[in-house]
């Protein structure tokens, strides 16, 4: 069934117009079919078949072919353009007609005229069946048009509930890890309370020029030794800083023996020897 090449739906419009013209111009035509338009040659054939007012299953394909050919001739006589597939169908029907009229010997290869006719009848029946089915479908009680669901459905309230899971091991591990980390963190914070070398140097520099007599370092640094944890840091940094200032010739240091108190004073021009002692 390849004869009827599909035609596009836009072309239908042309045909419809053609048909309207035909309908008006040829009211004596035996083929008055009142439809909106044809959707291709098969559709036209179906309408013609229906106009025979007999069961499509028992339609005379020969008569139908004649009708179609006459119809096409009519349109052409009105000098209306016809889509190619209508002409192809016409040619095919003319061929079918000749096959049906001339008795033939079946060679087993080519389908017989009867077989071709049967195939066309089948297509027409099938198309009609689908038309009917579409109509029956459209006329069913349709949801939202004919039958209705609950207009005010009662919503299902979904309560979200979280369920948590954790094992005792998770719990203890989290606790132990956290407490342990915190224990170490305390030490780290202690390290922050270091009196830097720079702090010490800054403090000592401010004293330079005011320490004429030997004065214990501890006394000079006493304002900074107040906080308990700072003692070592202050002592170490003050010592370091004082060494730098001695090297720069700003201070002198004196210590009588290891771990004995460290004395500081401004450097005097005569005190060259004293600086040797600064090696505690």
């Amino acid at each position: 069934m390849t004869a009827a090449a599909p035609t596009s739906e836009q072309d239908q419009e042309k045909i419809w117009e053609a048909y309207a013209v035909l309908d008006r111009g040829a009211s004596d035509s035996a083929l008055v079919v009142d439809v909106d338009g044809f959707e291709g040659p098969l559709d036209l054939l179906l309408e013609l078949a229906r106009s025979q007012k007999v069961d499509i299953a028992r339609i005379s394909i020969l008569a139908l072919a004649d009708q179609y050919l006459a119809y096409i001739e009519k349109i052409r006589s009105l000098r209306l353009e016809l889509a190619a597939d209508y002409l192809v169908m016409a040619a095919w029907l003319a061929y079918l007609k000749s096959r049906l009229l001339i008795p033939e010997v079946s060679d087993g290869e080519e389908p017989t005229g009867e077989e071709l006719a049967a195939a066309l009848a089948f297509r027409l029946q099938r198309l009609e069946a689908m038309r009917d089915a579409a109509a029956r479908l459209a006329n069913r009680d349709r949801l939202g048009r004919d039958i209705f669901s609950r207009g005010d459905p009662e919503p299902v309230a979904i309560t979200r509930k979280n369920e948590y899971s954790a094992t005792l091991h998770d719990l203890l591990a989290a606790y132990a890890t956290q407490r342990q980390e915190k224990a170490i963190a305390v030490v780290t914070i202690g390290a922050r309370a270091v009196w830097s070398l720079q702090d010490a140097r800054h403090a000592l520099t401010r004293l330079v020029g005011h320490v004429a007599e030997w004065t214990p370092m501890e006394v000079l640094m006493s304002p900074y030794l107040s906080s308990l944890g700072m003692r070592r840091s202050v002592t170490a940094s003050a010592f370091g800083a004082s060494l730098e200032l001695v090297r720069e010739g700003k201070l002198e240091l004196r210590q009588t023996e290891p771990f004995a108190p460290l004395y500081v004073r401004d450097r005097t021009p005569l005190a060259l020897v004293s600086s040797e002692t600064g090696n505690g």
Partner: protein
Amino acid sequence: MANSAAVMIAVDNDANAQSQSPEEWRQSLRMIEAMLFASAEALAAEDLASRLPEGADVAGLLADLKETYATRGVNLMQVAGKWAFRTAGDLKFLLAREAVEQRRLSRAALETLAIIAYHQPVTRADIEEIRGVATSTGTLDVLLESGWIRMRGRRKAPGRPITYGTTEAFLTHFGLDTVADLPGVDELKAAGLLDSRVPANFTIPEPGATEGLAPDEDPLDEADLLGDSTPR
């Protein structure tokens, strides 16, 4: 009173259900009634069962309820394999004001929809063969957009054309339980009119189930699922 017939049947069913006492049966009926009434959408029997007492005869309960409501203004219907209450069809005249505006399908679209429904899985070429006209892209688009048809897979044939079928929304909208319930489907099948070939070689295909693939169908390619829904 037509209702008494329904009541009789309900009582019979009660007697048959050995696992549930009449009181339990009645309570289960009430529960199903409540769940189905509250929902605008159809509910699967399994969904209902999950909220009923263990071992409840859901099929029996639904049959009972369907019978009870058969003569009433609201009927229990099977749609798309699920259950739902719907207003009775003969009362549509009353409910015009509830009607939502319907998508108006062109004749071509409606015909195409019918062909897809009765012949599924079908390719675009199949549809054109049946209608004898080229199918405009717009027609399939409109149907895809309506949610009534979907791309099912690809035919195992040269060019691997896309196959179309109907959806659950189609069944729901047209009040069908399965595609086997399409009007006149049995007669059409018997007449060989759902066949893609001339009735000479008379093999009658079932209108395939909407789920799963036919033997000559492949699943859709990934690209089909990602890209726009319009087949070229």
